[in-house]
């Protein structure tokens, strides 16, 4: 395969490291706070001459509470490139700057970024503050963009990963908005052209200074950057309206479903549990992330047994990264022999039982902490990567101070904490099992 197939691609747990004497975060930074609630973190890091300007909106598909509006946070991300009265053609200006710029949307976030030469800092502050406070687009442009969204939806609709993800969420959640994917339901995506007025209210409610955090990383002077930010963002009017996100009720019993994928695939078994919300200080939350690596990561006993020694599965992937609200943690595996699926599921259940009963090996725990620390540090190479590493603490807490706190908590995690996390969260009543098989191949 062409991708640089790393033995260990990346740790499943995001935003990680182990504590050092004065905290793991290796850079100086300055926090600029405005009266309207806007916060900007200025981090001097990365290569000479470059800056990464990353605006993090603490709104994502999690905030899509109204029926028929799934996928709207992502749609709105596209509209942010449609210009303002002052700068009607956003693309023209960023292309003159030669900025690498894009955006992405997830469950809990919408992130906009530009990476450019630092000689354009003033222009970028002006451009970005302008579109966040004064976006203006007309209905025909809105309708045209809706077509592009449907195109984006369709190009991945039948990829097995997304197809399965839709079904897992649908089965696992009763009320919380994590029940739908970020791209949204197809019917909702098709109805988007009619939602112009709703889009304006979306902008009015969520694109407010209290709900957006800027991370500027790179090569710049603190004084100049702070002065520019104060000058350009101070007039942005506050008015964020937090959505009323429904709480997911406690799940009473295991849920189980077999789904038939309309393409070719080996069976994929997806085993999911309900996890706590992300926290930098809550030991049970951090221990849950460690648990995923220790019990199901690329160095775990079950990984070795199923993937390497017995080669009964094509892969085994643990997804134990936590989210802003309680979300799913998962163990996904692709089984080579369809008849072996029940036995593979029993193997995974045995590993769950083991995690609930026995204490993890101390070397394994130490190695995992080390892996999480270096996973974080290895990611801090460019200005863009430094800024991106701040996304998780920002979406969960509104600031980057949680980075050092997270790694201090990690350092304190014991084998007993991990066992307690397994006993608390890897329980049958909170389990959702989805088996994806090839249509007609049973």
């Amino acid at each position, binding site marked *: *395969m*062409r*991708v*640089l*197939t*790393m*033995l*260990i691609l990346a*740790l499943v747990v995001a935003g990680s490291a182990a504590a050092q004497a004065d905290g793991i975060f290796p850079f100086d930074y300055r926090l600029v706070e405005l009266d309207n609630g806007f916060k900007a973190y200025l981090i001097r890091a990365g*290569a*000479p*001459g*470059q800056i990464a300007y990353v605006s993090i909106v603490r709104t994502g598909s999690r905030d899509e509470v109204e029926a028929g509006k799934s996928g709207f946070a992502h749609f709105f991300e596209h509209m942010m*490139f449609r210009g303002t009265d002052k700068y009607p053609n956003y*693309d023209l200006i960023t*292309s*003159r700057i*030669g*900025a*690498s710029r*894009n955006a992405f949307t997830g469950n809990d976030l919408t992130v906009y970024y530009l*990476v450019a*030469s630092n000689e354009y800092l003033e222009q970028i502050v002006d451009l970005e503050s302008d579109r966040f406070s004064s976006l203006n687009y007309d209905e*025909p442009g809105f*309708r*045209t963009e*809706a*077509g*592009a969204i*449907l*195109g984006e939806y*369709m*190009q991945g*609709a039948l990829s*097995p990963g997304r197809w399965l993800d839709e079904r897992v969420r649908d089965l696992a959640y009763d009320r919380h908005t994590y029940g739908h994917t970020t791209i949204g339901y197809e019917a909702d995506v098709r109805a988007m*052209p009619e939602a112009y007025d709703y889009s304006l209210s979306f902008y009015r409610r969520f694109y407010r200074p209290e709900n957006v955090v800027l991370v500027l990383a790179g090569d710049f002077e603190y004084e100049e950057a702070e002065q520019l930010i104060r000058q350009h963002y101070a007039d942005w009017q506050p008015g964020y309206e937090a959505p009323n996100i429904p709480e997911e009720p406690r799940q009473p019993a295991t849920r189980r479903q077999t789904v038939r994928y309309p*393409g*070719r*695939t*080996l069976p994929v078994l997806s085993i999911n549990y309900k996890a706590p919300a992300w926290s930098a200080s809550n030991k049970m939350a951090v221990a849950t992330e460690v648990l995923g690596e220790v019990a199901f*990561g*690329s*160095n775990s006993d079950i990984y*070795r047994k199923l993937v*390497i*020694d017995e*080669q009964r599965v*094509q892969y085994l992937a643990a997804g134990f990264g936590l989210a802003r609200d309680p979300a799913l943690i998962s163990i996904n595996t*692709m089984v*080579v022999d369809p008849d072996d699926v029940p036995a593979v599921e029993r193997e995974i259940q045995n590993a769950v039982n083991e995690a609930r009963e026995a204490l993890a090996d101390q070397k394994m725990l130490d*190695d*995992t902490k*080390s*892996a*999480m620390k*270096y*996973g974080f*540090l*290895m990611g801090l*190479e460019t200005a863009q990567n430094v800024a991106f590493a701040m996304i998780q603490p920002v979406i969960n807490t509104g600031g980057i101070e949680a980075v050092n706190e997270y790694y201090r908590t990690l350092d304190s995690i014991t084998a007993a904490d991990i066992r307690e996390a397994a006993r608390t969260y890897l329980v049958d009543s909170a389990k959702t099992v989805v088996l994806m098989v090839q249509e007609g191949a049973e």
Partner: protein
Amino acid sequence: MKRLALISAGLMVMVGCGGPSDTVTLEEPDSPFIAFNIWLKVGSQDDPQGKEGLAALTASFLSDGSTTQDSYEQILEKLYPMAAGYGYNVDKEMTVFRGRIHRDNLQSYYELFRNALLSPAFKQEDFDRVKSQTMNYLERSRRFNRDEELSKELLFSMAYAATAYEHPEEGYVESVRSITLDDVRGFYDAYYTANNIVVGVGGGYPEGFAEQVRADFDGLPVGNVTQPPAVDPPMPDGFRVLIVEKQTDATAISLGFPVSLVRGDPDFLALTVANSWFGEHRNSFSHLYQVIREARGMNYGDYSYIEAYPLGFTTQVPPTNVARRSQLFEIWIRPISLTAPGNLHDRTLFATRAALRELKQLVDSGMPVDTVEATKQFLRNYTVNWGSTITRRLAYAIDDEFYDYPGDGYLSAIRPGLATLTADDVNAAISRHLQYDNMYIVFVTADAEAMKQKLLSGEPTPITYAGEKSAEHMAEDELIASFPIPVREENITIIGINDVFERR
């Protein structure tokens, strides 16, 4: 040894030369990272007939297998606390192994990385695991994951039929099925030799380290690898169309033709400017993007290329270490679906016609001076992003060795090259290298036969919109909808998705 260093402005300069350039170093003493890039002068073009995919499977096996020092499990266990790994990339003419490590862990990491290449254990169970994963990809994932990537691979396969570039790097289902551990061992012995390897080391490594790495790789036997001649694919005679039948609600489209220039040729930068304006990868600066996506909302994006750009959907910056002596001009129209009422094949052909019509206008009219200047300004800043990490800078330096790129290398040559480039240069390059009369086109779509009949009928294929459009817009649409795609029935091939890349 060729030595490159990073000076404070971020530019690479040569600071010393001497001996054969079998080692590329890129020293950045303040960096906490060290990157490796080991280039073997072998690629899928060297796969024996009937064993297509052998170069890729060999690299995969080395990257994911045991060594005589450590079992694969032990390797994973040792890499784990460093949060590190290593990987490979096999292209038509190149194989590279790449890795990156924090300086805290350099020595223990390097031993694992080196052993993987120098002392593989050739265990049958490792081979079985890697081959099984590859077969799963060939039989299922390649056909049922990303139609747009598949359409690109098919375009290359069409354009390079009967050449050493024809088969996909990963091979065919039948050819890989026939590969044995002995085949892999034989391939390793033939091509993984001391004099067929260029060692690349970059970042904050200690004094003497690069020399140590080179000396280690010089421990391999000396071999006798001869480079095959460069492939020279013919221009298609008119239009050649491949339609892949697949149950899908969206059509993937790729089109293109061979161009006879590669990086380092006198026209290369001029054509880079033309291509950037016409279709800069995943950038709204792309004119095709403006026409098909921005103005018409037909899909997610539309781009063009003058160098191979595999896995474009995963990256915004150009892939490295896919250097080739032959290239295609390629247009990528991302999947077209029913984003407004109408017929999927009408929309597919409308988007294809729009792209062909824009290409014709570019070839016939060239680029005006102000557009060339705006594109130069864009590229002047934008290309700085291409060398953002030590891994990428080192990979570009390796590619410079492949192309025998003069001076300080390709990345360093872009800005000065743009400064002296004129609109006349750009337009002359367009005239010399681009055309619209001969074309390979690939569609992956449902009901291929209906698609074929629609294409042959030559009927206009108008589209509808979810919103109002101006009279001017609709007038242009009428021209697009009837833009000719001159293809004869005997030049249209249909195959089923389950036959794609089954065998040569």
